[in-house]
């Protein structure tokens, strides 16, 4: 009844090619963004902002980066945690070694460094494909884990190997309180998500998708695989690197290489797959799922155990939530291998006819 596009005529090409061609979508997205900026800071508690919203948004940004590579260009990567680490440590290096740089610039430069490393590690993708490539990207993960843990220069020779983020100073605005952190992250994520959406809709994104669908055919119709694959690696690593810098500076504050271990890579890959390969909206849904579910299980399991008379200690809770988590992932993959974004589009199809499906 409310979600019908009947009567919305597109009279220009640009209206036809808009990001959200349907007026209801436009209004809904604007309302969500406005609500996130204007309403959320007043209604949410500090805990909610700090440990749910901020990490979810940052993970969503990283998932967008990974989705560009895996979902749009079809190159499976298990090394995204390493690229988050590169972004974080590069931004840290810029921030402490060139203190004149504004913070936002160092964070973006962190992304740029990550993009360059991404290109270097993308070169094997020109020769190898599929799971061979996936395992090859693990090389990046392990190599950078080691590099940041063992080579003192990257951590500015701190004896413990743990690094403290510099003061968050964005053009004279000091980001301190949870609300400010949230707004800062939200602003960065919104801008970059818009950028990603437009990239994948455009010329470059179509090249990526052609490569994903069949690289030899794409090559024959004149798409350069080297250019397309390496640009996907670069853009993807840029997003992931910026997300890593935000994760370190805004969310963690002080961190160790362990924060970007292989578990982070798997978490991101899960977020992308559960959210939906090749969907920007899916990245947000998947990241929310991956971040909130374990927190929920940690809180909900002990009382549930009490109900059946089972006193769980902390280790058992974590093992048990592992188990449920793994089971749920398998369940999700079986029920909807195309992810939450697919569920959403099915729902939209239904909504168009609702409540009179005939």
């Amino acid at each position: 009844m409310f979600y019908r596009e009947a009567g919305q005529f597109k009279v220009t090409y640009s209206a036809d090619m808009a990001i959200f061609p349907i007026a209801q979508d436009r209004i809904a997205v604007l309302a969500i963004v406005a609500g996130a900026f204007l309403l959320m800071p007043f209604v949410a508690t500090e805990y909610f902002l700090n440990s749910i919203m901020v990490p979810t948004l940052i993970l969503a940004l990283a998932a967008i980066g990974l989705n560009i590579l895996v979902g749009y260009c079809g190159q499976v990567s298990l090394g995204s945690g390493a690229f988050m680490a590169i972004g974080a440590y590069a931004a840290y290096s810029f921030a402490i070694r060139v203190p004149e740089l504004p913070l936002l610039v160092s964070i973006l430069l962190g992304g740029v460094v990550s993009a360059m490393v991404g290109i270097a590690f993308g070169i094997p993708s020109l020769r190898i494909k599929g799971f061979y490539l996936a395992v090859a990207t693990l090389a990046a993960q392990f190599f950078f884990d080691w590099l940041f843990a063992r080579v003192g220069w990257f951590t500015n020779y701190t004896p413990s190997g743990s690094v403290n983020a510099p003061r968050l100073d964005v053009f004279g605005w000091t980001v301190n309180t949870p609300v400010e952190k949230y707004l800062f992250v939200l602003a960065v994520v919104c801008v970059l998500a818009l950028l990603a959406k437009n990239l994948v809709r455009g010329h470059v994104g179509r090249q990526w998708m052609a490569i994903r669908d069949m690289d030899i055919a794409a090559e024959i119709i004149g798409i350069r695989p080297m250019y397309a694959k390496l640009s996907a690696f670069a853009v993807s690593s840029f997003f992931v690197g910026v997300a890593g810098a935000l994760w370190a500076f805004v969310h963690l504050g002080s961190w160790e290489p362990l924060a970007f271990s292989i578990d982070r890579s798997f978490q991101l890959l899960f977020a992308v797959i559960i959210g939906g390969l090749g969907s920007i909206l899916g990245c947000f849904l998947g990241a929310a799922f991956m971040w909130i579910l374990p927190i929920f299980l940690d809180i909900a399991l002990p009382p549930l155990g009490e109900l059946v008379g089972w006193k769980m200690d902390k280790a058992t809770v974590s093992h048990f939530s592992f188990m449920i988590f793994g089971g749920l992932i398998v369940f999700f993959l079986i029920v909807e291998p195309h992810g939450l974004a697919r569920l959403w589009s099915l729902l939209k199809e239904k909504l168009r006819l609702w409540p009179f499906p005939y």
Partner: protein
Amino acid sequence: MGFFLEVLIGGLLTGVLYSLVALGFVLIFKASGVFNFAQGAMVLMAGLALVQLIEPTYIGLWHFVGIGALVAAVAGLLILRVVRGGTLAAAKGDWRAKLPALVGVGAGLVGGLLALAGGAKGWPLWLAIPAAIAVMVAVAWVVERWVLRPLVNQEGIILFMATLGITFFIDGFSQTLFGSNVYPLNIGLSKDPVFLLENVFEGGILVNQLDISGAIIAGVLVAGLAVFFQKTRIGRALRAVADDHAAAQSVGIPLNWIWFIVWSVAGIVALVAAIVWGSKLGIQFSLTFLALKALPVLILGGFTSVPGAIVGGLLIGAGEKVAEVYFPVVTKFAFGTAMPGGIEYWFAYVLALVFLLFRPQGLFGERIIERV
């Protein structure tokens, strides 16, 4: 020279153990095209089950009863399957259609009662190993029935993510069930180091006996698998499935049964790996990281090649030990400052990556021919 040989031999023997884990991957990838990340978790589960059955330190009587029931049910169903000849399917409504359920439940009850009578004393090795195998067979059945079958015809990456989910599940499940400490596993393999070639080099070469017995076990296992694959009827069916799923199905090879068998075999390989690694390090959670160590072995050797897994394991094992020992020396010579050690952590991966640039399908992998 003696020192170099010692490092090399130590590395080679560790490499044998890597290939033991890689073998499980290869089997499953060959037969079902699934990149099974859960192999490491299966090693952990097999090891925990075995060690808790031999020397119960954590689990109680009811665990034993449960495992006894499970073991008996699995054994009963397998015997039934063999007796009935495998492919006979009874019509619905026929009493024989209910036979598997009856046999499973009946055998399970008997097994549970027997275990209850025995009490939580710990089982002898000859009973504990088949019991651990039965646990792994049950895992294979669950995976085949509840994960692979619903996901048939999905893309490779979806199946891979599903095995990641299985990894989480098995890790959590086995630690909830069997405890999560470090359990020493002692099944009578000697751990004393021995000196070899004492008359050739001064002081000889120090080799751990455990590594040697591990290598022997691995050799026997590989020989057994080779015979199984080449000479038996099931082995031939497995090879047919590995070659072409659709063609194999069209000549009447039941795919689900083959997958079940192959996951069971991978479970048994995981048990062997758990025995060898567990004797070395104790059964603990870090065994799951073995899966990560086996991955570069795989890409070096090729995903579909059993000999590749062996050769790859040897290369990686020897290469990373030698690199670990000589890397600081070489960098000191080259750059003037010794780089920090610990490169064992990534060396295998970078080696495999560089190698892939020159041979994208691994050492023994099948050549990929692409068509539009």
